[in-house]
């Protein structure tokens, strides 16, 4: 059943905003450009600091018979060795689950020194007077391992039961979920054409340039704990470590002032973020642990790896009727905390429709546990996975039916207005078709096809690929449910204060790790109150300085942070208007505030600066209105209705059929995130996401061998795209304001991560003269491209 539910557009904005919509340069840039930004490893070290290094499991699955620390403790500068025996005295367990009946619950020790479940699992921690000596100490630990058989084949685990890895998962499956809406079977039975494919999205990860890092300082005299961590979620991390540490949240301060990229990886709460504070408490010393690149690649969180089986029912006219999906997430040894491995699988399944007007969808989701690093969130959770599978499938169907891929998408695309998908997602209106048409125009599509034909005559193979998308943004409660996170609840908050001198302090529970909140959220606050941009200061990233909130992930900060600031800012503005009205002896409604000046409507000569109004509010004595609260401050929270962005990506590539090398000529993009706060920042988010998407589609692969050994432990195996692999990009915008959010803003931080999908399609398009091309996996390395050509040749020419 497909319901079209046009929503009445909400009446918008008072006056044209001077800052929102403008390319405002980032006010935070100078500290990064001059090397003054203090990331976790750069923070001034507390006196008496010890450095931590972890013993990590070199085995995929093993029992630890004994750990002898005597040699390690004999090294000058090695101060302590801690295992579960000591740590469990000050640190409880993590319990990971989701509030859904299909999902199991696991409770596990945060440091397990008796059994190893994956290569990289922390087993023991050594404290030394320098990182050099702490690592020497790890090298000198004598450990007796009893090697166990690892469970590595996730698909096989579902059909061939094995002894449970954990008692919590008797069938080695974290969750099995089934869903059906509409008469899937009947549509398939009656369809003129049915198609199927298997697509294996490889394992890749955010791998931010700044690895994780935690420094903890527990003061036994006050019971106060200060933790510096490279996290995207300082308050949320505080909430999740407080329980296991047995320390009230009010006495924990988490600081994450500058974070060198997160991309979702740092929105988890990691074992090390609890262990380092625990060993600070045990040792009575401040402790610092800075992750190295091997640890980051092997032992932080992996993402995306999913085997997707898709089936499509298509009618005589080339109309997509229904999709069936089976999603098997290749989970790690336990679900990442707290988001779990379902962030990829269940979200992938819910996003099968996106722009396609389907009558029915059915799916199953499984997330078996294997002896690998846990999987969790990475930019575009799940919906990037299903887009790789579905968009390559759509092109394959279009080629099979001999319909142009743009035409096929437009034929099956939902209308450019609010729309509810068969999976229950309430799209708030967008340019679903409009962005496709815009990209076709930007590409000069017909001219491209002509050039392609000419080059083929010369033995050169260029191709064009597309990916149209709808992006779930601004994770509040309702949109979380629409992503398959039933019973979830999310919100965020902002505090806005006009200080006595008229300057404005904004704090939010968001976290900035590159998204320019100090600039963009200041734009929002300045417009809301009517002050100059320069007068606004945004403070985040520190639980002692900013209001509680859930941090930044899931493209939520512009909408939820922006919306909470608008709400709080309007409260402050109303108070200012009351004060200015009193001072100038007019009604508050007659006060207009713009660029830091409050004036009487229609009489611009009667005015006060906001500094004068603020001084009056705080210190104006009896002349202030009766019952007035002096402080010009408000804290408001916001849990928005679902806001979905959309757009279309296209890639043009050339493939060398001799070597399998793919050169991406350019990316052409049209995105629609509703009202744009700062177009420069939007373009930057898109471009950065595209590079990561290209990584996952072409280069980045976290590989385990059959025995469970991790073999992608450095940047010489795990290949980041560099400036020579990422192409130039042309980005255009359509602004379909959201009728349901404050200010019409939609989130947009993640869609760029789809940038690899059109590349996969472009490779297939380039190679189509060789025969039938079916993309069955990503990343598509040069050897995979050569295999595609060989298989197409062997199967004979396309029909």
């Amino acid at each position, binding site marked *: 059943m497909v319901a079209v539910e046009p929503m009445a557009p909400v009446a918008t904005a008072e006056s044209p905003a001077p800052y929102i919509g403008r390319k405002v*340069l*980032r006010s935070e*840039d*100078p*500290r*990064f*450009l*001059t*090397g*003054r*930004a*203090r*990331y976790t*490893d*750069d923070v001034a070290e507390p006196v008496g600091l010890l450095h931590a290094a972890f013993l990590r499991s070199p085995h995929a699955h093993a029992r630890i018979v004994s750990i002898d620390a005597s040699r390690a403790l004999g*090294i000058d*500068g090695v101060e302590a060795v801690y295992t579960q025996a000591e740590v469990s005295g000050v640190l409880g367990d993590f319990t990971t689950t989701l509030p859904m009946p299909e999902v199991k619950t696991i409770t596990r020790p945060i440091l397990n020194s008796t059994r190893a479940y994956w290569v990289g699992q922390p087993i023991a921690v050594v404290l030394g007077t320098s990182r*050099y*000596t702490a690592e*020497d100490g790890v*090298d*000198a630990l004598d450990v007796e391992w009893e090697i166990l058989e690892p469970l590595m084949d996730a698909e096989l685990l579902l059909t061939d039961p094995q002894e449970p890895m954990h008692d919590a998962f008797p069938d080695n499956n974290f969750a099995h979920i089934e869903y059906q809406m509409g008469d899937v079977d009947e549509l398939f039975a009656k369809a003129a054409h049915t198609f199927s494919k298997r697509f294996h999205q490889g394992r890749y990860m*955010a791998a*931010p*340039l*700044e*690895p994780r890092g935690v420094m903890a300082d527990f003061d036994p005299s006050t019971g106060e704990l200060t933790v510096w961590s490279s996290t995207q979620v300082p308050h949320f991390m505080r909430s999740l470590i407080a329980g296991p540490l047995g320390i009230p949240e009010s006495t924990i301060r988490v600081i994450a002032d*500058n*974070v*060198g*990229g*997160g*991309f979702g990886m740092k929105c988890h709460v990691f074992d090390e973020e609890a262990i380092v504070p625990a060993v600070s408490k045990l040792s009575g010393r401040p402790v610092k642990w*800075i992750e*190295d*690149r091997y640890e980051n690649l092997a032992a932080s969180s992996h993402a995306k790896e999913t085997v997707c089986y898709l089936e499509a029912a298509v009618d005589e006219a080339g109309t997509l009727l229904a999709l069936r999906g089976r999603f098997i997430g290749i989970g790690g040894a336990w679900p990442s905390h707290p988001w779990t491995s379902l962030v990829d699988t269940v979200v992938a399944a819910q996003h099968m429709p996106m722009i396609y007007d389907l009558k029915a969808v059915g799916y199953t989701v499984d997330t078996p546990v294997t002896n690998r690093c846990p999987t969790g969130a990475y930019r575009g959770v799940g919906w990037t996975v299903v887009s790789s599978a579905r968009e390559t499938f759509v092109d394959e169907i279009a080629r099979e039916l001999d319909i142009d891929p743009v035409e096929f998408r437009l034929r099956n695309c939902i209308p450019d207005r609010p729309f509810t998908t068969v999976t229950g997602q309430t799209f708030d209106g967008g340019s679903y078709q409009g962005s496709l048409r815009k990209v076709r125009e930007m590409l000069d599509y017909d001219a491209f096809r002509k050039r392609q034909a000419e080059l083929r005559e010369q033995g050169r193979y260029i191709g064009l690929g597309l990916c149209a998308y709808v992006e779930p943004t601004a994770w509040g409660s309702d949109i979380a449910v629409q992503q398959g996170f039933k019973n979830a609840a999310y919100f965020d908050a902002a505090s806005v204060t006009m200080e006595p001198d008229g300057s404005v302090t904004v704090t939010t529970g968001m976290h900035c*790790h*590159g998204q*320019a909140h100090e600039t963009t959220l200041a734009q929002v606050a300045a417009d809301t109150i009517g002050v100059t941009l320069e007068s606004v200061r945004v403070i985040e990233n520190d639980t002692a300085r900013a209001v509680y909130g859930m941090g930044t992930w899931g493209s939520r900060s512009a909408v939820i942070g922006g919306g909470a600031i608008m709400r709080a800012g309007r409260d402050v503005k109303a108070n200012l208007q009351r004060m200015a009205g009193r001072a100038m002896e007019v009604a508050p409604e007659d006060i207009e505030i713009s660029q830091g000046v409050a004036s009487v409507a229609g009489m611009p000569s009667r005015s006060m600066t906001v500094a004068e109004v603020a001084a009056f509010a705080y210190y104006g004595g009896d002349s202030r209105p009766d019952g007035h609260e002096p402080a010009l401050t408000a804290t408001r929270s916001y849990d928005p209705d679902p806001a979905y962005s959309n757009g279309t990506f296209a890639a043009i590539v050339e493939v060398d059929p001799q070597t399998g090398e793919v050169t991406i000529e350019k990316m052409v993009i049209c995105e629609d995130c509703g009202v744009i706060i700062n177009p*420069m920042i939007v*373009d*930057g988010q*898109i*471009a*950065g996401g*595209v*590079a*990561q998407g290209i990584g996952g589609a072409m280069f980045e692969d976290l590989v385990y061998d059959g025995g469970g050994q991790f073999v992608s432990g*450095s*940047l*010489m195996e795990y290949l*980041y795209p*560099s*400036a*020579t692999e*990422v192409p*130039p*990009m042309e980005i255009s915008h359509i602004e379909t304001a959201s009728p349901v959010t404050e200010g019409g803003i939609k989130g947009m931080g993640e869609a*760029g991560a789809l*940038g690899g999908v059109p590349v996969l399609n472009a490779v297939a398009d380039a190679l189509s003269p060789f025969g039938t091309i079916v993309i069955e996996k990503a990343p598509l390395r040069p050897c995979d491209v050569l295999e595609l050509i060989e298989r197409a040749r062997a199967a004979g020419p396309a029909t």
Partner: protein
Amino acid sequence: MTTDEKTEAHPVEFELNGRRIRLQVDPRTLLADVVRHEAGLTGLKIACEQGVCGSCTVLEDGRPIRSCITLAVQVDGSSIETIESIAGHSADLHPIQESFQREHGLQCGFCTPGMVLTAKALLAENPDPSEQEIREYLSGNVCRCTGYVGIVASVRDAARCTRSARTSTVGTEGEGV
């Protein structure tokens, strides 16, 4: 390497941002650790510790090197320049840094010091690089945030500004292409 291998402290002396420094170091001590921890200049970043990503780039006698795989003893007698000093005393930002702000050449900022120093070395060698030359020169510096679009634009902008400043000092009209 473990401490049961007998090591002796070695003297090392080099110029860091114009100031002579003299230390005794364990031979395994990395230049990056000396600059960050001994000299307190934390602008250079450690991200891969194997010379792949370029975050730890500093300039040795004007040439970009990887301080995370350079032993401190190797730079004895050299002149090392880090991000902290390139703007000079009279300005807040070096023109390349200004271009990075103008063209959105950074997001999280972690690769930025290495990127800016590498760009400085490029423009010293080649004041008028093509887009492809910029991409190739910067290909040893990884950025995980920007997709390089803003970085390439920043370096082009910096090249243009530097050329036009040079042109105006010799008294001719017009901006470089």
